[in-house]
């Protein structure tokens, strides 16, 4: 479905040189006027948009066949990558002081209460690690010159609504296309081969993580909701002033409003990180992490989880699987791993509060 669109006007009149005029909507293509007549020449760039849905020109049978083929393909890809230690693995290094290992991309499922052995109640967020694979390794020259990076993707998505360039990245790794791709800066000894699957057992109960996600968008919000200003009283003579910011700063000396002044504007729908969240429990059957407290983002959104960078828990990575947890290794994990002080539902009330 081709459509003409007129993107940019450039007026050749010397008085208006340097100005650009934007015209929206479709206009009949006009001819380029010549300068000799003396009339201001108009030149515009024509674009022909010919994007279609993938099944727009396919029959129903063909479209369903495409979907079926693609999903079988994905299953095959995932199955091929299940045993990373068996097909030409990259060398595994030992943990050293100051190493940083990779993180995961997870889906936020919801929240539920949790009790400790002494009867205290906390709340946890469930994060499911769904189809998480390493996609690309960026050596430090390519990335930022200081340390290498690993691109990790989570949750498979359909290849039909994506451009060929983005699909190329996943094709090279041999994994299905992912909905979210995150970058993790790692140290040299923690790099992984592209295509390695990552599981929830990468994190263990008792450790602390940081979770980054896009917060729920609240739109354009006023200063009371966005920054927590107190506003003005409802009565006692206030004229049309109840939720306004009030004064914008000191008076004649700076004679300006400082940069970064808190004012109304877009709130939410931007990345935010929750630091230092304790992992209470890891479920290996469904690959779910139970992480303390709340996490930015709405339900079923994709979040980036990594070991915390807070200095209080700097040395925790020593006891954790390095560079990651490989499922075809020797250790067989129980279905549920619990933190030491967490109350497990199957047990009787053992401790006295």
């Amino acid at each position, binding site marked *: 479905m081709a459509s003409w669109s007129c993107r940019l006007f450039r007026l050749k009149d010397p008085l208006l040189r340097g100005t650009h005029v934007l015209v929206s909507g479709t206009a009949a293509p006009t001819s380029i006027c010549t300068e000799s007549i003396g009339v201001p020449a108009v030149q515009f760039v024509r674009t022909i948009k010919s994007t279609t849905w993938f099944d727009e020109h396919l029959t129903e049978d063909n479209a369903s066949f495409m979907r079926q083929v693609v999903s079988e393909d994905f299953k095959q890809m995932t199955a091929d990558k299940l045993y990373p230690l068996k097909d030409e693995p990259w060398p595994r290094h030992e943990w050293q002081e100051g190493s940083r290992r990779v993180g995961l991309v997870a*889906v936020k*499922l*919801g929240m*539920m*209460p949790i*009790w400790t*052995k002494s*009867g205290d*109640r906390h709340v946890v967020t*469930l994060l*499911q690690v769904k189809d998480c694979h390493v996609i690309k390794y960026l050596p430090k020259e390519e990335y930022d010159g200081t340390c290498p990076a690993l691109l990790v993707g989570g949750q498979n998505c359909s290849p039909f609504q994506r451009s060929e360039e983005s699909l190329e990245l996943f094709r090279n790794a041999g994994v299905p296309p992912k909905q979210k791709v995150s970058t993790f800066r790692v140290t040299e000894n923690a790099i992984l081969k592209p295509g390695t699957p990552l599981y929830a057992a990468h994190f263990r109960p008792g450790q602390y993580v940081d979770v980054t996600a896009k917060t729920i968008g609240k739109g354009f919000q006023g200063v009371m909701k966005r920054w927590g200003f107190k506003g003005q009283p409802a009565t006692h003579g206030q004229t049309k002033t109840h939720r306004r910011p009030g004064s914008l700063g000191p008076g004649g000396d700076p004679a300006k409003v400082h940069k970064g002044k808190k004012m109304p504007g877009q709130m939410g729908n931007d990345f935010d990180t929750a630091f230092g969240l304790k992992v209470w429990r890891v*479920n290996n059957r*469904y690959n*779910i992490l139970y992480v303390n407290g709340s996490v930015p983002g709405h*339900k*079923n959104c994709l979040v980036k989880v990594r070991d915390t960078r807070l200095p209080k828990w700097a040395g925790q990575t020593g006891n954790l699987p390095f560079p990651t947890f490989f499922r075809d290794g020797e250790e067989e994990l129980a279905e549920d791993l619990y933190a030491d002080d967490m*109350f497990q*539902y*199957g*047990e*009787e*009330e053992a401790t*006295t*509060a």
Partner: protein
Amino acid sequence: MAACTRRAAEVLCLVRTLRQIQHQNERFISTSLPHLAAGGDGRPPKFTPPPKPVIVDKTQSEASLRRFLSPEFIAPRSRTSGLKFVVERKDMVQRRKVLNIPEFYVGSILAVSMKDPYANGKTNRFVGICTQRKGSGLGATFILRNIIDGQGVEICYEMYSPRIQAIEVLKLEKRLDENLMYLRDALPEYSTFDFDMKPAPHNPTADVPINTVKVRMKPKPWSKRWERPKFNFQGIRFDLCLTPEQMEHAQKWAQPWLEFDMMRHHDTAQLEEAIYKEVQAELSK
């Protein structure tokens, strides 16, 4: 009552068929009162009651046992993925294997023992009427109300908290309303329950008895306007505390279109069936 009349009708049917059989087979089976075989002294013979007919009632099978699924298993309508509920239900069932959470409704009288480090004997027992049941999943709660030394006390317990040691149903019954918040403004006699109350026996097969008591209220002002149609309380004696004009005035806040609003209808019957089967299977493991 209905059961009695049904039973009596069955007996009569049986008697009639037995009499027919008697005539057909010409065998003498005495099913009626014995004829007055006059004794020698002319006095009426001693009354002997007829033998009780043995009726084998095959209708009371497993199917008639009351099926009950605790309301916190059914999640509210939301965009949460099904896996979260599956995982939560597993935990709930595991906890139920250790602590028996009995079937109860709003209006039943419960006794809850909870672990308390500051109480002598380390446990804390509270008896009260269940006024509300809220929440779904592991965070489900219920509120017990009682009046102790003239002071009304409401305690909100979390059903799956590890501090709860025992939940006992002293009297299983339902009320006319799903929510008994109005007991706060009712006369104290309706919220007072003895701590040493003995548990009343309840039938696992018959329907749960509904207590149709209509509660008498203290004079207005109340903590909330219980007469408003949004609450739709059936268990209050409004005729004793409000005039018909006040009742009519309260109807101004009625929203009669709400019951026809199809977007609010959420049929949970199929969901309940599936969850009930799953829970029973898990519990029996």
